């Protein structure tokens, strides 16, 4: 008798779990044969004894009623103009190129038009701000005269205001370098990894490393007692953590000089 009851409860729980999966993941609700399930429930009902058992039965019926509602919605959707075979759509999306998909989207996209405005309150705040600025501070700023000329792409590149490569390409190369240097599974010192011969590149590498950590490619292990022993470890699965924390890494010129001296030794 105990076994029958236990088996019945197990069946009830499985039915509830299946109904929840259908509801949450959008699976075809007709996977559940409602008539057959109700027949099983009726068959096992005499095995339920306690109040908790009956509550479980009520929950099962509630879950099944939600599936029936989903079945109703499914039929209405199939009859509507938005219905199309999901497998066909998936196959098309896989085979079409990025350019073709972007062109398709442009034809169906009608963006919202809006304008930003400055409210009277904000304008008043701005006026108060400038009114309260010390006159001496404003007068001390003397812009120097300079000749206006046109710049070139090369000049912007030298000033690091324009790069030849897109940021995504730079990041992809950085990810590849990280994989190569760690062999996919070894730890590497954070400071050794971000160090570069030039200070500006040292900062850039630290910035790119923050993307590696944020997007789950690497794990940052900080030693609170010995900051120099902070390491990066590759993650086998690129999973973004649900619980995000912040870590402050002191990146300054003196730190870079210290690393430079260490690399020469």
């Amino acid at each position, binding site marked *: 008798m105990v076994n029958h009851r236990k088996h019945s409860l197990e069946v009830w729980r499985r039915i509830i779990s299946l109904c929840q999966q259908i509801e949450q993941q959008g699976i075809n609700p007709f996977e559940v044969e409602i008539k057959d399930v109700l027949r099983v429930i009726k068959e096992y009902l005499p095995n339920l004894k306690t109040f908790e058992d009956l509550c479980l039965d009520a929950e099962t019926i509630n879950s099944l009623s939600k599936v029936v509602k989903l079945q109703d919605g499914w039929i209405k959707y199939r009859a509507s103009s938005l219905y199309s075979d999901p497998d066909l*759509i998936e196959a098309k999306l896989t085979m079409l190129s*990025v350019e073709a998909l972007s062109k398709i989207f442009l034809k*169906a996209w009608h963006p919202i038009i809006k304008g930003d405005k400055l409210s009277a309150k904000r304008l008043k705040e701005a006026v108060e701000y400038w009114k309260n600025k010390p006159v001496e501070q404003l007068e001390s700023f003397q812009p120097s005269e300079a000749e206006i000329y046109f710049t070139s792409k090369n000049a912007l590149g030298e000033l690091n205001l324009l790069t030849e490569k897109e940021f995504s390409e730079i990041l992809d190369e950085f990810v590849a370098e990280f994989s190569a240097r760690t062999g996919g599974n070894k730890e590497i010192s954070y400071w050794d990894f971000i160090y570069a011969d030039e200070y500006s590149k040292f900062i850039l590498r630290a910035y790119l490393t923050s993307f590696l950590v944020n997007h789950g490619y690497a794990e940052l292990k900080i030693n609170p007692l010995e900051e120099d022993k902070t390491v990066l470890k590759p993650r086998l699965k*690129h999973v973004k953590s649900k619980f995000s924390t912040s870590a402050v890494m002191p990146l300054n010129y003196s730190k870079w000089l210290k690393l430079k001296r260490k690399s020469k030794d």
Partner: protein
Amino acid sequence: MSEETTVYANKIKKAARMLFFQKYRKPGLKGWELKRALGKNYLKIIDLLNLELEKLGLQINVVSDEGVSKDKLTEVQKEKAWFFITLTEGLTSDDIEMSGWRIDDLAVLAIAISYIISKQGKAPRTDIERILKQKLSEWRVNFNLDRFIKMGYLSQDENGVLHIGWRTRAEVDQKTLLELVISENVVESQRVNSKL
């Protein structure tokens, strides 16, 4: 101009100001707000404004949170629905280039929205990521999906299932999108892709 015409003209201008300038975190206004500002004939004023906007290639779109088609909305449902001004025609590649959108971004939206529509309005995020990772790098896939959730094109629930967002309902002609995906010639697309 008669007094009645003047009153209507002023109300049309007021409606245009209200709809163009963003008041809340998201653009547009609810029907009841327009009714309060323009009077009980607010729908007539919106229709008149729409006629003027059509000359500029714009239109007023009505979107209900329940997903009811705008043609089937009752008076009561229209008061709860959102009113937006959108473009009537689609954009060109040049428009997109100037606005800072990348073709990768548009492709991510096309894939995500089409797939979710084909799955009756919701699909696990992992399924969409699987298709996107065949075309784009992993970090870009996650970055874009998170960005579009923030912008309102998609929404994500606590079970990691993506739904159509309010902005997609307002901006995207879902029927046209699906029809174009189905009818697009794959061979031609791949030939163009290989040339690039």
